[in-house]
């Protein structure tokens, strides 16, 4: 892969994040080539969320360089970054007394110069809802949506930012299998560069161009799913017994795990 020749949507170079003397990220270097979908994998506490937060400036790194959507984070105002990079964080409140259209229009905030120009914003918000097949949700109360609908609406909100890069922190959490597939299918179909933290290795292998595997705040490997997700590596990182099969339909890696045998 000639990653050097292509432009990079995300470029982390020797990034460390230290809190209370503990390295949450330890000299991590990671790249997301423009237009690609990169999966961020690793056990709980391996640094996936920290890495994403560092990438959009919600967390400060102590050493190394971060370039996100072509902007050097050290010298970029949050608002300028927000015009190019949208995030689906995990902390979004669910019991908001907002309509779906209100929620989607939150994505226009970084673009607004004045308080006006709401008419075109509303049109754009409806377009974004249509792209996630959520037109009929527009006037619903956000708090009444199901988990799958909610994630689609939040994705529409991210699209409303007109981003060139999407960061998603475990977007498939709490979704049933069909909604997991639907959401990732949707994200892929957008054709926007994205870095997505996932738990399900098979799902990551099925949808991502590349995956990056983290353990204890260090990057273990980055590359194609076939190259990174070998049974030895998964066994080592997750402390499980792992067999990598070939998916009978898609020919993608199918990662199966079982408890590690003892003694």
């Amino acid at each position, binding site marked *: 892969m000639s990653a050097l020749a292509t432009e990079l949507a995300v470029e982390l170079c020797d990034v460390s994040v230290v809190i209370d003397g503990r390295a949450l990220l330890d000299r991590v270097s990671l790249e997301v080539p423009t237009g690609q979908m990169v999966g961020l994998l690793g056990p709980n506490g391996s640094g996936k969320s920290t890495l994403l937060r560092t990438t959009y400036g*919600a967390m400060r790194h102590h050493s190394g360089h971060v370039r996100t959507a072509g902007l050097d984070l050290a010298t970029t105002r949050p608002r300028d970054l927000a015009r190019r990079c*949208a995030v689906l964080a995990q902390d*979004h*409140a669910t019991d908001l007394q907002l309509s779906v259209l209100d929620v989607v229009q939150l994505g226009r905030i970084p673009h607004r110069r004045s308080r006006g120009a709401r008419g075109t914003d509303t049109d754009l918000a409806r377009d974004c809802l249509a792209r996630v097949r959520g037109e009929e949700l527009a006037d619903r109360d956000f708090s*009444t949506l199901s988990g799958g609908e909610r994630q689609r609406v939040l994705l529409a909100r991210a699209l409303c930012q007109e981003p060139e890069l999407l*960061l998603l922190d475990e977007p498939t959490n709490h979704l049933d299998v069909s909604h997991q597939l639907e959401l990732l299918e949707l994200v892929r179909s957008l054709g926007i560069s994205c870095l997505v933290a996932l738990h399900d290795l098979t799902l990551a292998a099925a949808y991502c161009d590349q995956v990056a595997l983290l353990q204890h705040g260090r990057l273990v490997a980055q590359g194609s799913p076939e190259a990174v997700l070998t049974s030895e590596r998964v066994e080592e990182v997750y402390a499980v017994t792992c067999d990598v099969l070939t998916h009978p339909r898609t020919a993608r890696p199918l990662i199966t795990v079982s408890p590690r045998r003892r003694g």
Partner: protein
Amino acid sequence: MSTTSLRRTPLPRPPQPVLVAGLFLLLIASAVVCIGLGPIAVNPTTTARVLWAHLVPGEHEATWSLIDERIVWVFRTPRVLLAALVGATLALVGVVLQAVVRNPLADPYLLGASSGAALGAVIGLVLGATVPGLVVSGSAFAGAVLAGLLVYSLASRGGRIEPLRLVLAGVALSYLFSAATSWITVTADHGKLPGLLFFLLGSVASATWGTLLLPALGLGIGIGYAWWRVDHFNAIMTGDETATSLGVDVTRFRVETLLVTSLLVGSVVAVAGGIGFVGMVVPHVCRLMVGAEHRRLLPVSLLVGALLLVVVDTVARTAASPRELPIGVVTALVGTPFFLWLLRRRPVGVGS
């Protein structure tokens, strides 16, 4: 989330301009009626005529007595206006704080500004009672701002402010300030007690045209600020990380709102004492009416806050006539049942 289907269906929402215009007219009408009510009643037509004569330049034929004119213009109009200003300000502070700390129970009291202002006022009363007006207002104002700064410095850690820590620091400091206020109240000489009670329970009885200046200025600044930052309020109520990703500098924004709300609460407490519940209850009621989007919520909350306090103050001064009930007592009597109803109605905390 299987309970989501059991949630209430939203109330039908009238178009925003209609609602705002309706509330505005209702506020004007209530003000005119309330100005007329009191030990000496003036009928609304006369009241309106007197107000018209004062507000619109030109020759007016006086069809009313001089006493009516003095009652309306000198005594009751400033008082009703002050009630409206104070109600609107408290509602505004409530809307802002509830969004910024993402806690539905946040009100001006919760972050210590009210109790700080009361303590400042009480200290001012005890120390410098010679020129009550100026010293007391100034020290109440200083108390509110200092309390805000203190809560902020206690709640921030490593340059970040967490909403929960902010609320806890505010509650803890409020207790401390109240204790200090009580101590001073008990040990103060009896001649000063009525003045102290005024600040503890709240009242707009001291209103003159002159006392309107400070809260009017405060409210003007507050509205300007809130409208300027209206997008930020919408963003921050969804979560810190989401707000950050939308380009909001969350920590700086919290500091900013803490400063502005302290100033606003200071300007209100300085002239009207501590008036509880308005700041918490009004935003809730308004959210039920128009939802939480702040472009819609702010104007409606301002009007409902003003309307509520105009009516409540009229009840306070007429219900037990010739005695006056402290306005804080009446708002608490209205507020507590509402608060309890709210507790039973929805799960506590944000995020179901």
